[in-house]
């Protein structure tokens, strides 16, 4: 892993069109500003990891209920 030391107000540049700025450092919290092309999605890592896991779990399905069980709108 590439390691760099940056201070508040300093940036790193990824490729030609992605910039990450250290906006503020307060205690153990770092506030970052990301500038990237509109087409590049930016995620918090823990959300990206959780969604990837759900996508992979969903893709493991080979069959579904037939007929599917009704949802909560079913009359009692």
């Amino acid at each position: 892993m590439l390691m760099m030391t940056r201070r508040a107000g300093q940036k790193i540049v990824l490729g030609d069109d992605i910039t990450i700025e250290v906006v503020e450092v307060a205690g153990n919290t770092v506030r970052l500003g990301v500038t990237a092309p509109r087409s590049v999605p930016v995620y918090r890592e823990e959300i990206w990891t959780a969604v990837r896991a759900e996508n992979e779990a969903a893709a493991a399905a080979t069959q579904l209920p037939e007929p599917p069980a009704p949802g909560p709108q079913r009359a009692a």
Partner: protein
Amino acid sequence: MTQTLKSTRFGDVELADEAIVDFPSGLIGLQGRRYALLPHGKDGVFVWLHSMDDPDLALPLTKPWSFFPRYEVELSDSEAERIGVSDPSEAEVFVTVRAAEEAENFSANLRAPIIISGGRGFQVINDADDAPVRAPLFAQPVG
């Protein structure tokens, strides 16, 4: 005019070109950007989002509001700008389904819905407060 979707689950499926959805950013953590929606069963509760390029890659989806009537999708400005859809109600909204042996263990990912509009699809991060990644589909939490 038509393309053949090859599927390890369903065999060869002929699809009109218009049925193919382009995901410019793919699905989060999964490969490929060309997918098609295949209906599942007669009642249309579930659909399969099937890769056009990987015969083994398909995810069951459902429309969230039949299970979660109060579900809301809130997009950040940057996310709305990225997908070119500011009002999700103007697009088709699906959520991925995690299947299980028992119906009560089925869940849906309300945090990362799939929004399809004009032949393009995006998996987005929903900023709404009540949007777990694993919301039970058939056993609603009490309270």
